[in-house]
């Protein structure tokens, strides 16, 4: 099997993680260093083993990008809009509270994903009802009210 360039990223990421955790571990008390060091050595060793495997594969079979395989049929616009909406949803919850943010998030994303308006309305109502009855009423979870809503309430 050919070596994939995308795996270089995996190896680099794992080495960075090892380096960060090692730099933090040496700051700990001697007695607290044992186990983290054990896990760091384990991760470092396995990553190095994988690196060796990659090099052997590259020499034997050559190198391929791997990007096409990893991101086959990838729709960047759709993906990044969904990701951004999800992150914004989190921010909105902090400011506007859970229910308002959920309605905004769902309506936006459903319409963006081209769900017809009647289905959008039904889905939003169904999810809000499910969360209200299952979490707020049945489990008694007080969902975030949002700092702006709290301020307005005062």
């Amino acid at each position, binding site marked *: 099997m050919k070596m994939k360039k995308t*795996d270089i*990223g*995996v190896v680099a990421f*794992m080495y960075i*993680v*090892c380096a960060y*955790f090692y730099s*933090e571990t040496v700051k*700990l*008390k001697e*007695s*607290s260093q*044992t*186990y*983290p060091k054990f*896990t*760091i050595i*384990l*991760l470092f060793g*396995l*990553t190095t*083993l*994988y690196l060796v*495997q990659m090099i052997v594969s590259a020499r034997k079979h050559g190198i391929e990008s791997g990007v096409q395989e*990893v*991101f086959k*049929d*990838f*729709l960047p616009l*759709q*993906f990044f809009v*969904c*990701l951004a909406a*999800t*992150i914004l*949803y*989190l921010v909105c*919850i*902090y400011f506007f509270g*859970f229910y308002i943010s*959920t309605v905004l*998030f*769902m309506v936006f*994303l*459903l319409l963006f*994903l*081209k*769900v017809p308006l009647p*289905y959008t309305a039904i*889905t939003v109502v169904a*999810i809000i009802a499910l*969360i209200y009855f*299952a*979490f707020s009423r049945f*489990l*008694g*979870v*007080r*969902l*975030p009210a949002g700092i702006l809503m709290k301020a307005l309430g005062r």
Partner: protein
Amino acid sequence: METLSLMGAGFLNALTPINLLMMAGGVAMGIVIGCMPGLSAAMGVALMLPMTFTMKPETGLIVLGAIYCGAIFGGSISAILIHTPGTPASAATAIEGYQMTLRGQAGKALFTACYASFWGGLLSCISLYFFSPLLAKLTLKFMSAEYFWLSIFGLTIIAGVAGKSIVKGLISGAFGLLISTIGLDPITGVKRFMFGQAYFAEGINTTCALIGLFSMSQVFILAEKAIKERAKATKFSDKMSLTREERRIIRPTIFRSWIIGNLIGILPGAGASIACFLGYNTSRQFSRHREQFGQGSIEGVAGSEAANNAVTGGSLIPTLTLGIPGESVTAVLMGGLVIQGLTPGPELFGKYAPMTYTFFAGFVLVQFFMLGIGLIGCRGFAQISRLSDAILIPCVTVLCFVGSYAIHKNILDIVVMLVFGILGYLMRKLDLNTAAVVLALILGPIGEKGLRNALRTSRGSISVLFSSPVCWVLICLCILGILSPLFMARLEKKSMEDAVSGTAEDVGKLTEEDNV
């Protein structure tokens, strides 16, 4: 005698109205999740985990068990009606089931799947009752060093599953172990890798990590591809039943598949996706009507479905007794157990025996609910399986958010879930194993305590880790665990090839759908 009284008391406790209601709800939810291609059993169980926190441990576990069983069966509905297995566990069912649908026997195929799933699941409870206490007693001999090796064994088992590279699986496990060290040192109380946040004092919230790695990452997977219109589920008008003769024909098939599924379930590292093909192959080998295979055989459907549901009870045995989940669903279930403050092992069959036997009894009753709800609701579930990814993406996201918030009512939990969601997405894209990370987060603290206590008692001498025969047995099992994926991959490939030999078209389609 004591066990019998515990079993009896377990049934009495399980039969309370709230437990029965939860069983019905859990099974229905599981079937819905299972019949939707794109959603997995592990994802469903992870998503519903926070809802079980406020419940009694036994009720919570019954709900999770019900979702698990329901999801494994639910996969067969879309496999039979739209030739798309809802979960990989139903891939073999699609071969014969869809042929029956084409012949206008969808009702019969669905009844066979439901009936065989019921018997497979029910019979698997026998081994759950019989083997679990025996295996749990074994762990009484375990000391700190053995617990350390046990946690490593658990990791080696799951690390190699599902990925293309064993080393990558092990890297995922080691990465999870490292993350599990975040928080206060369990022995000295020193702050470790907390990024200056008191929030991380108790370490990474396992439930949030679970939801992120299994559920949120799936949302991103769905979001990156074009939204496809799913095939219309075939409307069927034939009767959902089997004649007495047909039931007699599939009886030995169900029995054989039960044994296969159960063994595969007990074996850590193997799962329902292997069991369904082995069950299907065996049913064909022993069938007196081999000519019907490939044309729509009820024995084929029964063989696959009984085997994949027999895995459920079997896979709970190593999970509850040794703390070694054999696959991602049981890893999530174990997370639920640990979060409830329970540790797998002898304690579950001693101090917490009433709770454990109530769960077992609930697991038996869940099979009856699966049969009833499956038969009554098949037509409705078939329509649900068409639900578009465009609707699933925002709905699952909202459930991930509310689920992770509900645990400690802390917005930071949602942040952690989201970070793990993105991490899980990237890991899945790069063939790293998310289940291994989850398991490492659960087993990491157990292994750490074992290692450090062992080293403390031996005054730092590492020889303590190799001091007992049990340690050596576990070390050998670790080595076997590392090598087992090679064997499992061959077994799965071979049984899949055997299953679809002669129907080459199906191989491509099913493999493609399995990857989803």
